[in-house]
């Protein structure tokens, strides 16, 4: 079977941006086409990963807007929403479009505008938290349940069940902030120490400020084609060797084990099988650390560590950039930022650079890379395995 190649990648500066969604998407899309030396008129399909442009700024139809702004009229376009996993779902859609033969050249752009979007009189973090919490079931929403509160409840259960020290979560924040220092596009480029993380204000007990990603604007893009023609565009490309998507319960408390993310395990199993790879084969991973605790759950449910032991790996430096399995060399969502629809695309952007040896000071030795993008609180998940050709 002809595999799917990624022949171009880009990301904008992540952070508090003046631009609104249309301009953010166009910036990354334009950069990606230039990176690959491809004309917009050549595109067969154009996907836009975005969770909530309608809710944040009252702009819907962003896929059509982007096609027009990039000069890609005539391409089939579609907006892909899978909440926080919209980016990964976009990677899946773009992969599917090429793998099926429906498209020979697909551009994926993921983006979100989250800052300065609240109505007058409403604080922006509270507004953004509510927009994201709108994905919850009515039985959850009426209690004021937010994604950070799910993280607090899950972290408490994890620390209780596996006798993990609170410091292990702080270690994730310290590691990812350190990695972000060397990412010029990251929202935060500032090292923190364990004490700072441990003593920062409580947000959702036992989690504190530094356990959470910031509210970020930004966009990222990827260009896909069949592997058989990739060399006609560039010598520098990677292949999608495996990809899987899965869904868990909408109502989070209906899961048997609050410390297991079933859709991470299921999507990972599908991706490993397609790629004919095992967890031991993965050299570098980008995981969805919207909250520090999520890095442990994914690392365990993807098979990198036994259940209840990922915290030990964080304490021992195994997941540091110079460790046996570097996780979130980009800085992760924690320090790079989490513009919802962009995040899953930006994860693959980081791994593309790692596999091509183009990650500069963040570079690690990697032939096989894995990205896991999580929507809701593990509700929808896409896992992608990327390799050198």
């Amino acid at each position: 079977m002809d595999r799917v190649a990624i022949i171009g990648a880009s990301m904008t500066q992540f952070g508090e941006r003046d631009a609104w969604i249309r301009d953010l998407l166009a910036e990354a899309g334009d950069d990606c086409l230039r990176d690959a030396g491809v004309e917009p008129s050549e595109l067969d399909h154009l996907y836009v990963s975005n969770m909530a442009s309608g809710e944040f700024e009252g702009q819907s139809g962003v896929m059509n807007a982007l096609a027009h702004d990039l000069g890609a009229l005539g391409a089939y376009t579609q907006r892909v929403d899978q909440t926080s996993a919209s980016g990964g779902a976009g990677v899946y859609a773009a992969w599917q479009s090429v793998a099926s033969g429906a498209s020979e050249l697909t551009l994926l752009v993921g983006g979100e505008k989250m800052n300065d979007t609240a109505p007058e009189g409403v604080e922006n973090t509270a507004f953004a938290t509510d927009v994201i919490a709108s994905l919850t079931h009515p039985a959850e929403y009426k209690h004021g349940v937010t994604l950070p509160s799910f993280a607090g409840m899950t972290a408490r259960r994890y620390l209780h069940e596996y006798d993990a020290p609170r410091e292990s979560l702080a270690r994730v924040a310290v590691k990812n902030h350190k990695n972000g220092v060397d990412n010029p596009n990251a929202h935060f480029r500032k090292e923190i120490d364990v004490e700072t993380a441990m003593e920062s204000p409580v947000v959702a007990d036992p989690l504190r400020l530094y356990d959470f990603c910031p509210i970020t604007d930004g966009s990222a893009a990827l260009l896909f084609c069949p592997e058989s023609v990739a060399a006609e565009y560039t010598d520098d490309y990677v292949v999608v060797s495996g990809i899987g998507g899965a869904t868990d319960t909408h109502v989070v408390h209906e899961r048997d084990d609050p410390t297991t993310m079933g859709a991470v395990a299921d999507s990972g199993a599908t991706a490993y099988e397609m790629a004919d790879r095992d967890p031991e084969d993965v050299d570098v991973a980008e995981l969805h650390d919207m909250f520090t605790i999520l890095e442990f759950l994914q690392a365990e449910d993807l098979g990198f560590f036994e259940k209840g032991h990922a915290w030990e790996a964080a304490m021992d430096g195994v997941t540091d950039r110079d460790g046996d399995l570097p996780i979130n060399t980009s800085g992760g969502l924690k320090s790079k930022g989490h513009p919802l629809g962009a995040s899953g695309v930006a994860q693959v952007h980081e791994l593309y650079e790692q596999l091509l040896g183009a990650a500069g000071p963040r570079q690690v030795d990697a032939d096989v890379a894995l990205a896991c993008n999580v929507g809701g609180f593990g509700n929808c998940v896409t896992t992608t395995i990327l390799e050198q050709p």
Partner: protein
Amino acid sequence: MSLDAHRCPNGHLTSPPHTRCPTCGEAQTETVDLADRTAEVVTWTESQATPPGVRQPNAIAIVEFAVGDETVRQIGQLVDADVEIGDRVRPVHVDELRDPDAGIRHPDSQAWDGYRFERV
């Protein structure tokens, strides 16, 4: 007022209800009122940064009820954060858990009353 769990013909329980049982795919046909029972705290948090219309801080727990040989879980606000994992709690009805007009969800699209949990 009741705190309903929903049961399919194969005995699986969920709360809230679903059109088909998530475990076996059968339609849910019965309800069990949990309002007069006690439950065990599975985990909890106290959220300091709450969305518009939600009390601040907002203590929330996932609790587990035993119904015969089956168990069913609920999420809900806590009367206060003075709980630990494993504590027993009882449901207390509240007419309005958050301000229906302040958040992004349409106020007519769902109910806003429900049960908080209080340590026994």
